[in-house]
């Protein structure tokens, strides 16, 4: 199971999936609105996942 945190909804959930894209589809996350962090490293969407990975979808902020 992958531990997933979606910042926008302050939601924590455990999911089974082969890659990040699959999780984004399941949770209906827009690729344009997030930066993706896997195990504290910025990660591309096509990255494969393994059990015990920690995934965060953090909102893109652009204000100054």
């Amino acid at each position, binding site marked *: 199971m992958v531990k997933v945190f979606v910042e926008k909804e302050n939601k924590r959930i455990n999911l089974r999936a082969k890659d990040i894209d699959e999780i984004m589809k399941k949770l209906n996350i827009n690729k*344009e609105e997030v930066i993706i962090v896997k195990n504290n490293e*910025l990660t591309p*969407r096509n990255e494969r996942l393994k059990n015990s990975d920690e995934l965060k979808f953090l909102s*893109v*902020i*652009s*204000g100054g």
Partner: protein
Amino acid sequence: MQYNRIRKIIDIEKLRKKTVSIVGLGSLGSFTALLLAKNGINLNLMDFDRVSVENLSSQIYSRDDVKRFKADALKKYMKKLNPEIKIKTQNKKLDSSDLSILDSDLVIDCTDDMETRFLIDSYCYKKVPWIHTAALKTIGLVYVVENSLSDLYPSIISLDSCDEHGIINSTASMAASIAATQAIKILLNEGHEKDLIRFNIWNNTFDRIRVNPEKRKEARIIKLCRNSYSVSLKKKLNLNMLSKKYKTLLKKDNILVIKDKNRIVINSNGYIIFEDTNEGEVKEWLRSL
């Protein structure tokens, strides 16, 4: 005398010879300018905007500054705080035809506009150190850009502004404190933070996120706002050859601005900004390289 306490920690004489460009003088930019000015650093201040009453709670301006250009108001205030520093101001938006106004020892992006950020990226790419900052509501972000901004933002970016969503001043001052500290470390060659720093001041969460540009294998085409695109290629570009082929608007160091169908900003290290175009035209132009 005024630097005695700082001098115990940092080489103030070295800092006083340095100039930092700050692009965007809202909440992040105004706090960052304040911190750098007090450390004796010369400033190049840029913003097209004027102070409004809505700015007063989250930016360092006073009621007397309302309707003044932010750069002018900030210069006046900074000169009062530290008359020794040199300050240049630009009351206009950063434009691709005039990127050399960024000439300085370091650039700090405090804007809220992704297109301007990518213009800074194109100019500074592998040449001038620069720091990307952003803040919204209670979340702040600071990143010393090691490679390119496209390592952080791989696709079209949804823009949220402080005008729309708000910001509390402690978010801005914390992000500014982190950015100013990193700026000082870069200027003094003291080594800087490699990770992306992101915090939520309301929840007291603080993340250090590793950024690994090597994970990006392919050239990326990123759509910015107003039909502009940024592309970072993994190859050097011959500016002399390109300047002969196209109408040249600007050629300085490793930057070339040309006019083909529309304006194109080219950094010889393989970074290109296309203005007012579409993805098809961008791909066609890249194939002609």
